[in-house]
């Protein structure tokens, strides 16, 4: 064997060994149960996935192999409907309602996780005059852009991909006076309306570049993605021309809200669904620790999303710390969604529960929330324990668990109560 040949063989063996080692080390250790999450892209593009969800979830639930698939909401729902997912994260309430109605969600109502808002961006010189005419009116802004577009002074870039943002955009056209087709897009394929077929970030870049003749480009985006791209200096030439939708504007103050919900896929539809893992993921997304981390991400001054899992409670009347056993305790107050301007939680069930041990709460009183968002719960307290307010899982929001403190039922009087 010649020297050169030996060298060659050694080199070949070395390369093969290095590659093989890499191959083996990766294939081993894939024994954990897979948990497939079909999600909208903004959760990944905003950094929430990499920096919050993945590290925290892996630490708390090492038994699950989290597979996070980031696609548009339309595709995420289609994949989940095809049985290709255990959890769905969406931000298109309309599409999600159909998903729930068709029985694909395990829970009757999805759990709200977080929110931010949609804004309209355009070139700094604002050729359509949106800032002047419709600073806080999304429908008016679209009409101004359409008018300027017809005059050859502006363009509108649509995602055109059935994503949550695209659905919202078409909802706004539907409220406008602009002629529309069956998809609620401006009618007649006008030259100023462009369907990009791209993700949010790419659509924003296309809008900034605006490779169309005459005027500048406008688009609608969620604030989280916009902030992330502006922060990274990928978007520098666009400015927000419309935000902070006025309550008096067409479509109401809630029109531009962007709410993210999570769903566990119903195992009745697909037996292979990892329900335990899915519920663990839902519990994790709505847990106080994840929610408070969300409020501080990327910074507490300018978070990309606002936590929205638990309703906010303001007590007007709390229980006394010490009561005579058998006495009635009254707790009253107001409960509302964490999303500003959201509908009152009319009819939501509120329960007063006592916690003898951390795992077995005893419900001592129930009430329903009035149309003004108020509630009053009364209950007879016979034993000492920590009291707290809860809303059950199938409320229109994630369950609330608000501690009210430890209430002591006096023993001397409990004898009387027993008598």
């Amino acid at each position, binding site marked *: 064997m*010649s020297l*050169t*040949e030996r060298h*060659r063989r050694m*080199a*070949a063996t070395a*390369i093969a060994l290095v*590659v*093989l080692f*890499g*191959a083996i*080390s*990766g*294939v081993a250790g*894939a024994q954990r149960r*897979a948990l*497939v999450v079909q999600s909208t*892209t903004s959760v*990944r*593009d905003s*950094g929430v996935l*990499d920096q919050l969800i*993945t590290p925290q979830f892996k630490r708390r639930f090492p038994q699950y*192999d989290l*597979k*996070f*698939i*980031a696609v548009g909401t339309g595709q995420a729902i289609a994949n989940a409907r*095809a*049985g*290709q997912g255990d959890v769905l994260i969406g931000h298109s309430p309309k599409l999600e309602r159909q998903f729930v109605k068709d029985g694909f969600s395990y829970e009757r109502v999805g759990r709200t996780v977080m929110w931010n808002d949609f804004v309209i961006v355009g070139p700094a010189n604002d050729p359509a005059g949106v800032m002047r005419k419709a600073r806080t009116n999304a429908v008016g802004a679209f009409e101004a852009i359409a008018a300027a577009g017809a005059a050859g002074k502006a363009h509108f870039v649509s995602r055109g991909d059935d994503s949550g943002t695209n659905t919202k955009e078409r909802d706004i056209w539907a409220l406008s006076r602009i002629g529309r087709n069956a998809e609620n897009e401006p009618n007649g394929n006008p030259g100023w309306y462009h369907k990009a077929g791209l*993700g949010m*970030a*790419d659509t924003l870049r296309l809008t900034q570049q605006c490779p169309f003749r005459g005027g500048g480009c406008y688009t609608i985006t969620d604030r989280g993605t916009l902030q*992330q*791209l502006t922060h*990274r200096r*990928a*978007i520098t030439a666009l400015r927000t021309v419309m935000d902070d939708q006025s309550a008096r504007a067409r479509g109401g103050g809630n029109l531009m809200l962007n709410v993210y919900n999570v769903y566990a896929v119903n195992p009745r539809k*697909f037996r*292979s669904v990892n329900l335990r893992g899915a519920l663990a993921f839902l519990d994790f997304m709505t847990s106080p620790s994840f929610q408070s981390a969300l409020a501080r991400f990327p910074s507490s001054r300018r978070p990309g999303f606002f936590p929205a899992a638990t309703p906010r409670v303001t007590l007007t009347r709390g229980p006394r710390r010490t009561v005579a056993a058998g006495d009635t305790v009254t707790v009253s107050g107001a409960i509302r969604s964490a999303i500003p301007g959201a509908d009152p939680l009319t009819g939501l069930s509120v329960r007063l529960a006592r916690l003898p041990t951390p795992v077995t709460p005893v419900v001592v009183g129930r009430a329903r929330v009035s149309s003004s968002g108020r509630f009053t719960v009364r209950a007879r307290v016979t034993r000492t324990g920590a009291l707290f307010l809860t809303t059950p899982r199938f409320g229109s929001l994630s369950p609330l668990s608000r501690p009210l403190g430890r209430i002591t039922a006096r023993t001397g009087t409990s004898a009387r109560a027993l008598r």
Partner: protein
Amino acid sequence: MEFIWDGLKQAVDLLAHGDHDILVVVETTLQVAFWSTILALALGLPAGLALGLGRFRGRRVGLAVANSGMGLPPVVVGLVVALLLFRGAPLGELNLLYTLKGVIVAQTLLALPLVAALTAAAVQAVPTGLLEQARAFGASRAQVAGLALREARVGVLAATIAAMGSAFAEVGAVVLVGGNIEGETQTLASAVLVRVSAGDYGRAIALGTILLGLIMILAAGLTFAQQHERRGPLGRAS
């Protein structure tokens, strides 16, 4: 311009500090390239030999299929493989969707026509007289095939490089079948896509630089082996 410079600096930093996330992506990329190339060779070499040397009906049709397979659109392959692997679909029981194995399967399908068609072309270029002579001396079919492969080794290595290169470059099928999951099925090329999408051009360029470096190192290694082979035996023979 600034982005490019920042990206290059980041690439050096990431490599110098042995950034764990990057190493995982590099490892995934190497696994996909290695296994898909091995599998494509295992299936493609016999197919290429048969198509190049065999005398059977439908050989030309097979060759045409292999040749057009070289232009197989990755997104279509990805779509078909993904749909076949959906839960409840014919191959759903294999549980390959969103796994590295699934990605390797899709990439093998893309690399297979490359290997088969290029091998067929290479063995067809071997002088027929040589193979006729071997047959005349009573060589078995396997021996003739071995001889043809040895004579056509330059072309076969070119097929290997092409298969490996397509694995490094592949995005469409990887994303559709693998789901582009960080730490599991995300390759360097698909990671670039995500970073660009998130406006993180610096890291995108860093990842792209590493990818280019890897392709160059491995292609150079194979090229040297190819050219060495070419010179070595002849040199000794004289």
